[in-house]
């Protein structure tokens, strides 16, 4: 409930619901004044990790290149395994990190290079959401 209330209190929130223990949250992001406005949807049920996807606009893949730092289904992959714990507030961690992903995504579309840092790992290592990863 604490996670839900913190997300709902964010001014950029468009909608926030909680049903059967699952949070569903939608927010609008504009990472820089030059950026587009993105709509992101986050779902979360403890003890799984939050899942966050870009609803609109459709993400670009220049030359058919795969999107950087996503899980299957284009779920944004914002932190290392075990870097995020359910004791941390999503509104203060996952949400700002998602905006940072969007910012570096726009630079990536421009150049094909990811400047946001982080690791690259085989697909098999992270093919599904697991608790606190």
């Amino acid at each position, binding site marked *: 409930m604490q996670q839900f209330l913190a997300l709902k209190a964010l001014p950029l929130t468009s909608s926030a619901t909680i049903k059967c223990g699952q949070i569903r949250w939608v927010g609008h*992001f*504009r990472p820089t004044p*030059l950026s587009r406005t*993105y709509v992101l949807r986050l779902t979360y049920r403890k003890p799984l990790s939050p899942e966050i996807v870009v609803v609109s606009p459709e993400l670009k893949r220049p030359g058919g290149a795969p999107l950087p730092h996503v899980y299957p289904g284009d779920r944004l*992959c914002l932190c290392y395994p075990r870097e995020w714990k359910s004791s941390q507030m999503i509104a203060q961690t996952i949400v*700002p990190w998602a*905006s940072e992903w969007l910012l570096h995504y726009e630079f990536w579309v*421009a150049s094909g290079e990811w400047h946001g840092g982080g690791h690259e790992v085989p697909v098999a290592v992270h093919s599904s959401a697991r608790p606190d990863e």
Partner: protein
Amino acid sequence: VRNFADKWAEKPELATAFYEWLDRLEEDLLTARETEGIDRTVVALSESFGEPIRKAAAAIADGYRFERERGTLRFSTASGALSLAGELPVRQHGFYGQN
């Protein structure tokens, strides 16, 4: 400072080329101002300024990462904007994922 006009008396085609470039620059700046998306802005400005724009964009992107790594990047809870002036600090993390 380079004087673009010093040869124009001998080579008037240089003046023509300069004013054509200036017209294109004006169009590109107007396009960039009305464009949404860093990627499209970089493309629009690169039409007039070329490779230095792409290098500048890379430096800006690296700058955001640098500010986050040293703990000074902040997040606006109203707009989602990242800057040095938002309400929330952007905590250290590493992007993961398959690509």
